[in-house]
């Protein structure tokens, strides 16, 4: 029970808490040193840029996933929403010749709408978020395939790929958006009354309601934000890959949850923080990147990520004892 609701400040009451709160930082430092020693390319600045580009799509979505989990929600439709963005653009702009900004605006609008509908169904029918977003995941995935007839499209319009492939000086726009997502969602969760209401709803929804908080509204907004961030992530993904693929990112939703849980935000709701997720994301990024540099088969990255998550949740469970 040592989760901080005020994420940045760690409240320490015992050596074990100290260890568990900083264990991830130690893991990160350890990995960093290990790869820096093992690979001559690791410390190259361009390598770090590559690493962050690689995690940007999942990272952007994991910010919203963090506050969803804090509010005792869970959104596994985000990967499908992200995949649909490229398909909408391909359909509207590439196939039907509409202007690029229509493609962007419509895809963002659809992301918001899907998230909103998720929230409405969960709240009005009082259903489990996992099941609702599981259904929505398939609805959206199917629609994505329908929109492009199951075909991948190359996207070369620089307006459409701007968010994923352009650079501001040396820094790719995708990384700027990644950083902005973390800053904005962190701000919302710690500095606003809405953010506090997320923690309260996740901590005890009955108590929050009786204190006068509109917990239904909180849930609907949470899922709408999640849909929005998935849309942004999808647009970034189109730019990074230069393609619109309806099958993209089937593992994205689980990757966001891995990053969130690895950071130490609990599935039980009411505690956790956005910076913790950043830490989880960076660790995943370093493992993937470092293993690639060492020419380890990519399959091992999946295993490493899974093992790390298991370790993290076991640590969490022992801390909550």
């Amino acid at each position, binding site marked *: 029970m040592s989760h901080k609701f*005020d994420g940045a400040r760690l409240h320490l009451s015992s050596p074990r808490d100290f260890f568990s709160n900083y264990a991830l930082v130690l893991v990160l430092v350890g990995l960093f040193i290990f790869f820096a020693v093992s690979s001559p390319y690791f410390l190259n600045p361009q390598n770090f840029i590559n690493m962050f580009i690689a995690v940007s799509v999942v990272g952007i979505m994991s910010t919203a996933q963090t506050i969803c989990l804090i509010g005792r929600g869970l959104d596994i439709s985000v990967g499908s929403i992200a995949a649909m963005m490229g398909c909408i653009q391909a359909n509207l702009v590439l196939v039907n010749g509409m202007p690029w900004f229509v493609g962007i605006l419509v895809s963002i609008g659809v992301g918001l709408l899907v998230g909103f509908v998720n929230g409405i169904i969960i709240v009005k029918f009082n259903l489990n978020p996992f099941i609702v977003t599981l259904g929505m995941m398939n609805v959206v995935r199917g629609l994505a395939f329908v929109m492009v007839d199951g075909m991948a499209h190359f996207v070369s319009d620089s307006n459409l790929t701007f968010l994923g492939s352009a650079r501001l000086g040396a820094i790719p726009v995708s990384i700027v958006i990644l950083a902005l997502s973390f800053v904005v969602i962190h701000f919302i969760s710690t500095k606003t009354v809405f*953010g506090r209401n997320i923690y309260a709803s996740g901590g005890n929804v009955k*108590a929050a309601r*009786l204190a006068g908080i509109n917990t239904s509204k909180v849930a609907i907004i949470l899922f709408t934000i999640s849909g929005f961030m998935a849309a942004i992530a999808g647009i970034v993904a189109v730019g990074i890959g230069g393609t619109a693929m309806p099958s993209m990112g089937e593992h994205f939703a689980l990757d966001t949850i891995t990053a969130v849980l690895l950071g130490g935000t609990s599935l039980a709701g009411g505690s956790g923080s956005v910076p913790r997720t950043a830490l989880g994301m960076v660790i995943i990024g370093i493992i993937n990147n470092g293993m690639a540099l060492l020419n380890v088969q990519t399959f091992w990255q999946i295993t490493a990520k899974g093992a790390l998550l298991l370790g993290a949740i076991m640590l969490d469970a022992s801390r909550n004892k």
Partner: protein
Amino acid sequence: MTTILAAKNINKSFGTAHVLKDVSFDLRPGEIHGLIGENGAGKSTLMKIIGGDYFLDSGELFYEDQPVSINTPADSLALGIRIIYQEFNLARSLTVAENIFLGNIPRDKNGFVDWKEMNQRAEKLLADMGIFVDVKEKVSDISVAEQQLVEIAKALSGEARVLIMDEPTAALSDQETDKLFDIVRGLRDRGIAIVFITHRLSEQFALSDRITVLRDGEAVGTLDIKDATDDILVKMMVGRELADLYPRNRMEPGEIIFEANDLQVDDRIKNISFNIRKGEIVTFFGLMGAGQDEICKAILGDPPLKGGTMKLHGKELKVANLRQANRKGLGYVTSDRREEGLIPVMPLQGNITLAAMRKLFGKAGLIKKKTEYDVAEKWIEQLGIRCSTQLQQIALLSGGNQQKAMIARWLSNDIKLLILNLPTRGVDVGAKVEIYKLLEQLAYQGVAILVFSLELPEVLGISDRIYVLCEGEVIAEVPIAEADQDILMKHAVAKFLHFGGNEDVA
């Protein structure tokens, strides 16, 4: 053998908190040993060490005068120690008999469940204790009191030598409590040693042979029941003289500040009329389930009233939902703090300011750290909430301090009507008195105070006027000068005795 179970110089710390300090405790065969102390005094920790849930830091445990080590719940069970916790450990969708034999279900020679054998043994076990429940009934379909008894039967289904009961009467009516006491005495006469934990001193006097008092993690002393009095025990528990548990200083009440006429909640709960004057503490007394929770929530618009009118300071009050109730200055301290009050993982500070966030930070909703800190600090100080820092998790505070925080939650929101449902449930004696004083002070300041209570001594101790609820209706209004336990109880059960009326007792 002089003791069946003994603990000597037990120490236990969690992080920096020293929860048990050199605690010694002994249990003799065939006695009922009461264990009392404020919340956070260390009762549960001591029991959990005996039950094998926690491991002691230092000290020794003895079983039948022989040193033993209890490292796991299995060790404790093997010694014949059974603990019944406040929260029931029953599988609600299984039958009574299945629950009693859970983990030890009788089988026939083919390895299938032997239903006949199981049901017969369950029936016999219950009958031996004088309990008559249909063992084929699902646990979810029997009353709370019956569940309590099933829990006991389950504990006794194996070879039990020591039975530890943690607040077993919390959810029981007086009659059910009496029944439970008979059963517990029966167990004692069968040679089972019993540890009985409760806040209610009257129950200790009714049941226990000896009483041990814990305070702040220390065993203050053990008394024979014949040497104990209310005053002695209270003094031992809170560590100071308490001339009166109910420190009322009644004054002439002022004008009516809240008025309810003919409120209707549903078909059963109706004809609720009452008023509250300035400076008064008005109490609703009734048996559990007389409509208390529903009335509280309906006043707050959750769901809205079906009929009737309310007036606050002379102006008509309409409440459509909980958000409106909050904005209009209505506050509700819920009967079940853990279910409906606390945000357990949140700090004390966030729990206090929760209902006032909108008032404090407006529609834009940007939190100013300093403002929030100051508001919480103010109420922590005024209400004497004991905590290490205001960022401490509220779940780590004692029941009394948690309850004060629940009241502070509403005070920080400029409250006009404060409804308290079972305001001292799970609250230790010391904090109780402080809460009563606080309510009186708020009443003088012009806050309308409405208390729902199930405990007669409390009702008589703190009220100026009492409305008695029976089966969803206000049956009587009794000024404190005319109230005593018999009159209130007669009203509270009026509808069960006389169909449709209370002529006899009016």
